[in-house]
């Protein structure tokens, strides 16, 4: 007896978002990065098209990460106190599709760097690499509202992705994106209703749907990641059933979440070799987010990125 494989017909599709602008488009990027566009669930080519593969970005901090464990520091050599050199290494040596520049130095509890200092770092990283740039604030709303306008202007026309807009603080960053031709990360605390609400707030301020990337704050493997999986999956299903306000591509932060887990860094011989544990924790977390429907991963360890890239290649149709 012949078995008919049931094929779901979806009425909607994930929207498409392009990061980065080339010289003809008013920027200086040599490469742009297009996310989304699927009319099916992740990797399920049987039911629809997957025009753009998921992308892997690497994160660069603008202040040397003193607390990073040795297995994480090792591959970077001596670039960890130079964001531009760090970014170059990520792109040229490790094959990152985009760079996330995290402005940790702006944190008022830490170095409290000025908006001008942060903008200068943005300029240097933009000059050093030619891939699209994601500029991510320090997480302090008041400080980010001072830092983001300066950084946005420094990168005007480059079609950067600015992060993050949250329900309580979205107006400044959205205004920056509108003024300087950037895109915005719409953030929610692992809550699909709040994600939709932030999206509607951004669109009502005039930001088009194709300039929004969604981000649910998630944990890593072992830290409630199952819940994150179901939220991302439900968001994808909403897009496929036609909910335009949940149809934007999704970003997931993997590196910092995975290396927060003690399993990644605690020197406990019974848990296996320390040099591999964090890498595997990050790669496994990344694989899970890709299967849940994420479009853009923010990675830390180059070996974890290589493992995920190998998985993506293996899952490509021959």
């Amino acid at each position: 007896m012949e078995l008919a494989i049931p094929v779901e017909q979806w009425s909607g599709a994930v929207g498409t978002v392009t990061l980065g602008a080339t010289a003809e488009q008013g920027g200086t990027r040599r490469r742009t990065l297009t996310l989304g566009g699927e009319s099916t669930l992740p990797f399920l080519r049987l039911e629809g098209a997957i025009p753009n593969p998921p992308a892997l970005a690497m994160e660069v901090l603008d202040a040397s990460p003193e607390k990073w464990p040795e297995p994480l520091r090792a591959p970077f050599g001596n670039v960890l106190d130079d964001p531009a050199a760090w970014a170059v290494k990520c792109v040229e040596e490790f094959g990152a599709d985009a760079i996330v520049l995290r402005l940790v130095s702006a944190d008022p509890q830490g170095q409290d760097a000025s908006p001008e200092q942060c903008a200068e770092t943005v300029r240097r990283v933009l000059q050093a690499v030619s891939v699209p740039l994601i500029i991510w604030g320090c997480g302090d709303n008041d400080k980010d509202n001072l830092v983001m306008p300066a950084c946005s202007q420094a990168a005007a026309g480059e079609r950067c992705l600015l992060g993050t807009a949250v329900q309580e603080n979205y107006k400044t960053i959205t205004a920056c994106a509108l003024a300087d031709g950037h895109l915005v990360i719409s953030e929610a605390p692992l809550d699909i209703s709040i994600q939709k609400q932030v999206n509607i707030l951004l669109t009502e301020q005039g930001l088009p749907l194709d300039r929004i990337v969604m981000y649910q704050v998630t944990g890593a493997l072992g830290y409630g990641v199952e819940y994150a999986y179901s939220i991302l999956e439900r968001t994808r299903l909403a897009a496929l059933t036609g909910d335009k306000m949940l149809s934007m591509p999704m970003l997931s932060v993997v590196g910092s979440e995975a290396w927060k887990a003690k399993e990644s860094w605690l020197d406990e011989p019974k848990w296996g070799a320390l040099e591999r544990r964090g890498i595997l924790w990050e790669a496994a977390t990344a694989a899970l987010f890709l299967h849940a429907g994420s479009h853009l991963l923010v990675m830390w360890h180059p070996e974890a990125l290589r493992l995920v890239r190998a998985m993506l290649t293996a899952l490509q149709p021959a």
Partner: protein
Amino acid sequence: MLAIGERINGMFREIGRAIRRQDPEVIQRVALRQVEAGADVLDVNVGPTAEDPVAAMVWLVNTIREVTAAPLSIDSTKPEVLRAGLQAAGDRVMINSTTAVPERMAALFPLAAQYNCPIVGLTIDASGVPRDAAGRMEVALQLVAACLEYGVPTDRLYIDPVILPVNAAQHLPTEVFKAIGMCRTLCDPPPKTILGLSNVSQGTTQRSLLNRTCLVMALAHGLDAAIVDVTDEALMEAMIAAEVLLNRQVYCDDFVRAYRAAHAVQG
């Protein structure tokens, strides 16, 4: 829910007059107002009084197409008027409607197959409107059989279990709601369901209240589409709230605005 705007109908005095005078401004204004109010589809009916209904339908369709690409529901009891409307509209159309009377099905299902478009089938046969849900299902099965006979996918069929004014047939809404639920078990993929909603409140004094309450109850039984007055804001908001409660739309604090904004993007 697929919301089909009912206002472009020659039965309404303003529209009837615009058709007779060939006044495009009125038609286009009503078309755009309905799209802005959230119509997914615009129903187009020349009404009972047009002298040359074929010419009137073609003029109406062309007039609307000048201002919006919204899908059109070509609404007539006359096959030649339907054919003319479909031809003028091109793609993004549906046929409204056929009954289960064999001659009508033989005239209209081939049109649905030819234009590859949805068709509304009323649960009315030669003996009229059935009394209860079971009677409606018998007629619905004949409509499904016609789909198979004429090569129309069953999920392109919208079964309308025909609701009548509540002041004349108060037992009927319950039977109609039951029928909506039963339609899902008819075949695979199941046909969709639709209601010409405003009929339920004909001749009553609280039309908007009855309409929106009936709509919410029908949605709870699984209704897919309705021909409604989309400019009735309370009705549309009740529909949106029902979609959230039925988990057809993801909740957010501004769920009404989210629904309307998403539709504005699509339109």
